[in-house]
């Protein structure tokens, strides 16, 4: 929470610059600020995934990072994973996905992220919250010395973001801010 506080303040300032009343649309300026916050959370997730997947990470540390990573998500979020060979989607709760990632049977794992992302428009859902999708690409490399395996893939990750206006009390004053939570993630293996 603490690390996002400067972003909240920024969002607050941007919010207060526009009309205070709840509006149906998000202005381009506010959208840009929300995009930055969403991207920050996606960056954190990408970092956590790389740490959880790495064989150099201690078990206790990986568990701590998994807790942090889980905090980025709205309750009940799932990962839907498919590969090139099958159209079947395997569904995992976020925690289960992280645990599977940690347990992968490689001696060395390197997870890195391409220098590209795409952020959709924000759409309002029936309950008034806004929803968007951030797309990123991940490269996975796993080496198993005993079996002489060298596995590599690139996956596209379409990450749901929920954007909600919340309020908090600071020194007796109510401050409104826009919060971003991650939701379901669709993981697709790419052929490139």
């Amino acid at each position, binding site marked *: 929470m603490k690390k996002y506080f400067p972003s909240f303040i920024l969002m607050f300032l941007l919010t207060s610059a526009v009309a205070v009343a709840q509006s149906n649309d998000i202005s*381009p300026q506010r959208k840009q600020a929300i995009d930055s916050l969403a991207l920050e959370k996606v960056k*954190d997730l990408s970092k956590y995934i790389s740490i959880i997947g790495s064989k150099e990470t201690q078990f206790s540390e990986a568990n701590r990072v998994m807790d942090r990573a889980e905090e980025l998500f709205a309750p009940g979020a799932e990962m839907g994973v498919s590969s090139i060979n099958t159209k*079947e989607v395997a569904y995992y709760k976020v925690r289960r996905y992280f645990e599977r990632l940690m347990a992968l049977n490689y001696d060395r794992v390197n997870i890195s*992220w391409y220098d*590209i992302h795409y952020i959709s428009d924000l*759409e309002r*859902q*029936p309950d008034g919250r806004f929803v968007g999708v951030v797309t990123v690409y991940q490269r996975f490399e796993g080496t198993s010395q005993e079996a002489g395996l060298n596995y590599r893939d690139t996956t596209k990750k379409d990450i749901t973001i929920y954007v909600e206006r919340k309020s908090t009390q600071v020194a007796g004053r109510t401050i409104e801010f826009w919060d971003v939570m991650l939701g379901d993630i669709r993981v697709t293996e790419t052929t490139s």
Partner: protein
Amino acid sequence: MRKTILLVLLVISSIQFAPGQGLYSPGQPADDGRFAASTKQVNQFFRRFNAEESQDGKKRYYSNDAEYRSTDLRKKFLDILFDNETSSIEAELKKEFVVDVINEEQPKYLDFHQGEWFAEVQTTFKYQGKSENVTLFMKLQPEGLGYEWVIERVGFEPFKKYFDKDTGSKKQFLHPLSHELDFMNLRRAFQENPKPESYTPTDYEPDYLTLFLYEIKKGHFKFENVTDLKFHFFQIDNWYFELAQFNRPGFNTGWLISNLVKLQEGDEDAVLKYIYDQK
């Protein structure tokens, strides 16, 4: 000695960087342009079709931006929004479509909320012990404070055999004076005829969606998977196109137009009938 210290520092720094390579961290792989070229989301298809973002997708254009919906940009985008590798859309037809949508006097744009486009979702459900394909036709509708996707129709092959009404002399009927006998012939109609649909009006159409929901509630359908997805667009006057996802090597990938039809009067119904009945 200095060399050793330098080496130790290098080793320490590499230990710190190796495990935690997040998005936009040092040493990340660079896109060679393929991911940038790919139409990564349906949302991006809309934006590119209307020229509402920059060529690299990094900047969203709004109505006060000079490039917003620029004809030149639209031309560039529309060229890359077709599946140019596997679909057999004729070049002339494609050209005619592009000329029509970027027409200076009456340009045509796509609108996410305007309707006249819907999703065809291929799914599998466990039904009577077997994994069966179920097609869900879904549309976007306003609800509460925003929008939601809803199931408008269902296609399910095994349902069809239950509604196979005979025609002509084979068709069973209740004769026109049945009412004088208090419809006593209904007993024979229901107990001795396996096709009760014979006694429905000519324009009767079974509602598979209701049937499907009923079967789900009864526990007869168990969801398994989503196996495929495409979209059908009727939003551009006199045109129909299909949008499908292409996951393959190269630059012509992502959400692309996979089928294009110029519609004459009455064609829309025929295309819709084909879409709904093909599975």
